[in-house]
C-alpha cells in the first residue's frame, strides 16, 4: 500500500525521536562505563 507523504514525515520524525531516545539511554551508561575503566584521577580531572 502506498504511503502518503504525511505518513513518511511521521516515520522520519519517529525514527529521529527514537534515535534521540536511544542516545539518552546509552550515552550516560557509556559514560559510567568509561569512568569505571579509567583511573580514579582521570575521573576527577574531568573531560571524559
Amino acid at each position, binding site marked *: 500500500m502506498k504511503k502518503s507523504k504525511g505518513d513518511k514525515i511521521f516515520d522520519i520524525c519517529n525514527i529521529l525521536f*527514537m534515535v534521540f531516545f536511544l542516545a539518552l539511554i546509552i550515552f550516560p551508561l557509556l*559514560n559510567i562505563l568509561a569512568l569505571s575503566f579509567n583511573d580514579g584521577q582521570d575521573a576527577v580531572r574531568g573531560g571524559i
Partner: protein
Amino acid sequence: MKVSFIKKIKSQWQLQAMIWPSIILLIIFAYIPMLGLIVVFQNYSPIEGFFNSPFVGLQNFQQFLGDSQFYQVMTNTLGISLLKLLFEFPGAIILAVLINELKDGLFKRFTQTVSYLPHFLAWTILGGMVISWLSSNGLLNNILMGFHLINKPILLMTQSGAYWWIATFSDLWKEVGWGTILYLAAMTGIDPTLYEAATVDGASRLRRIWSITLPGILPIISLMFVLSVSGIVGSNLDQTFMLQNTLNMSTSEVIDSFVYHTGLGNGSFSYAAAVGLFTSFVSIILLLLANFATKKIGKAEIF
C-alpha cells in the same frame, strides 16, 4: 449445598494445593503482624513489650497531625508522586505508541531492548550514577559547559528546589521503557483489520493512532491509572535513600523515609507506626476513589 462445596474443593485439589502455601504465607507474614498495630495506640518501648507499654489512645495521631514537619513530608511525598505520575504515565503510553509505529525489524527490537535496560539497574547503583552525573565534573555539567550555556557548574544535588525534578526524571529514565511493555502487549491484541479499513478510508497515521490504538488499550490504561493513583502516598524508598543528603532534606524527606528516621532512628516506634497506618489508610481511600471513577467512566474496573 455444603456437600457440593466440599466436593468442589476436592475436585480442584491440584489448584488448591498450589495456592494454599501462598495463602498461609500471607496470613503468617502479612495478616497476623497486623495485630502489632496495637502499638499505634500505645507509647511502645521494646523493653516493656506489647502488653506493658502504656496505652495512650490517639495521642500519636494528634502528635503527628500537629507536627509541622509531617506536613512538609506529606507535601514532598504527594508532590514527587504526582510529578512522577504526570510524566511517567503519559510518557509510557506515548513511547509505547511510537514504538508500535516503528516498522518491525532490527531497529525496533534494538530500541525496545535498550529501553528496558535502565529498569534493571537497582537504585543502589543508579543512585550513585545519578550523583556522579550531576556532580560538578559530571556529564550534565560537561555538556552544558561544552555548549557554553553556563560558565560555572551547577550542583543540582545540593539545591533542595531541584530534588523533586531529579527524583522524577531519574525515575522516568529508569522506568519509562519498562512501562511500555504492558501497553505494547495490549496493542498486539488490536484487530489489524481495523487499521487496514481505516487506511482504506484515508485515515492518516495520527488519526489511526488516536481512533484505533488508544481506544484499543483504554482498559489497560484505566487499570494502570487506578494502580498508580493508589500509590500516590507511597514512594520509592530505595531512590530516596540514595539521592537524599543533608542539603536537600527539606524536599527529599518522604513519608516512608520519615517513618524510617523517626521510627528506627529515634526509637519512636509508635509514632512511626501511626504515620504508616495513616498512609495506608489514605492509600486505600485513593484506590477506592480511583476505582469508582473509572467505573463511572465506563471502562474496566478492578472491583
